[in-house]
């Protein structure tokens, strides 16, 4: 989406134009859902995150504030903050896969169970990172954003994001290695 299109959408949103708002929702809610889903691992929580993200966006523009550009980064920042707050308020009960886990060949084939276990371990490790480190990992290596977009989302300079990414990768490796040993 080019800058002019984004600017038009933002202007429409600030005037509470339903068409512009609908377009924004259609454009950004799928990505936000995936982002929340990957971080939270729960579809309902991810939907809550999306809903709350757009609700906060409306409140902000109703107060005459909000972004003039970089709408995507702005929405991801809201979502990220919501997820971070959600972690602080209610640490998600990560489901440990053990022997008692129901063996359903259709839903949980062995390979899928293995993948599920790896996902849980990965999420657990990611949860131990700082919020900014976690966001850099997600946005850079899962969502596939470039450095500038991440920098805008985090509200930090690109150089700081590079440093942050370096530390995040190192920490995640150590956590995964430690988890593997255990």
């Amino acid at each position, binding site marked *: 989406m080019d800058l002019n299109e984004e600017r038009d959408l933002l202007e429409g949103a*600030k005037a*509470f134009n*339903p068409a512009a*708002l*609908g377009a924004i*929702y*259609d454009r950004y*809610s*799928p990505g936000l*859902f*995936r982002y929340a*889903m*990957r971080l939270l691992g729960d*579809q309902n929580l991810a*939907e809550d995150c*999306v*809903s709350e993200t*757009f*609700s906060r966006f*409306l409140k902000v*523009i*109703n*107060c*005459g*504030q909000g972004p003039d550009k970089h709408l995507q980064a702005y929405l991801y920042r809201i979502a990220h903050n919501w997820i971070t707050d959600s972690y602080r308020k209610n640490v998600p009960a990560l489901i440990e896969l053990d022997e008692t886990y129901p063996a359903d060949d259709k839903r949980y084939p062995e390979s899928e169970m293995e*993948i599920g276990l*790896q*996902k849980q371990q*990965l*999420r657990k490790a990611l949860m131990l990172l700082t919020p900014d480190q976690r966001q850099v*990992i*997600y946005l*850079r*290596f*899962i969502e*596939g*954003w*470039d450095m500038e977009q991440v920098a805008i989302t985090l509200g930090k300079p690109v150089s700081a994001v590079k440093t942050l*990414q*370096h530390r995040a*990768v190192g920490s*995640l*490796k150590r956590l*995964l290695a430690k988890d593997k040993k255990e």
Partner: protein
Amino acid sequence: MFTNKKIDSELNKKLSLLKEVPERRAEDVAKGRSAFLKEAHHYKVSGVIGQRQLNQPKKSIPVKPALLNWRPKMLKVAIPIILAFVIVFGTGWMVVRASQGSQPNQLLYSVKLASEELALSMAANPADQFDLSSAYMQNRATEIIVLFNKGESPSEEEIQRFVAQVDNSIAIAAGMDDEQAKQALGRIQTRLETQIQAIKLLKVDSLSEAEKSREKILLALQDKLDIVIKGKVNLTWLREKIEESHSKNNSNESQSPTPTLISSTDSHMEPTATSIHGNSQATHTHTPGAGNNQGGGNSGNSEKTKTPPGNSQGGKKTPTSIPAPTDEDTSATATPKKVKNK
């Protein structure tokens, strides 16, 4: 766009696991979109606040009341002004207050006189003016009595100031309406009688300069008392005398800068005194111990002695009697008939 060159393949592989997310349920999408647009509609409908806020600056700035913003600056200017007022007027007020107990020849006495003059000029009506003038008349009397008690003799200037204050009170009283004027003159009469009595009772060496001053003051006060008594009976006469006196004063202003005095005769005061009596020919002299006078304080009538004006200007010569104005005094050539011995 997805750059994973900086991370190793194992980590990249693990992270790729998270890329896979279940498909978002269509009903959740529709529900979420509907809720979002509904909320947006709510803001738009009830969006007076929202619209207004759209026009506000992007960042809300806490707005201080204007007064709070410029108060420090205002105070920077106001405090020195207030202090200057306090110092100037406060100090001035203290000086004026301190001067009220001062005596002639003291440093603050001129301040006392100036403050009295100012108060008189600022009096709202003749009644207030008279009250003040009457009080100042008493002040002058007290000052003179204090001087006598100290064994000092009041100067000619102090005597004239006293008599001028009496004149002023009489003039103010005469300026009121008839009823008020009579009451005011009555008050002056009472006050003069008391003052005369008080001065008579002073113990002064009979051969001293103070005694001469006392005689002079008593004669002047008696003269004023006669005018007041006569004026009470005939206000028209009093007013004419005052008017006549003013006319004379105006014509003599360039010649004599000294205060003008209302007098029943010209001879009772030093040459600066101007009579409203108009009888410049009538001068009554009194030589203490000359026989006619049966001693100071005797109230018997003595024979009236008329002398030419020049006779009364002797340094030691003092009037033997104070002529009281009569009905004929309304004429410029009237001669006092009532004679009183001191």
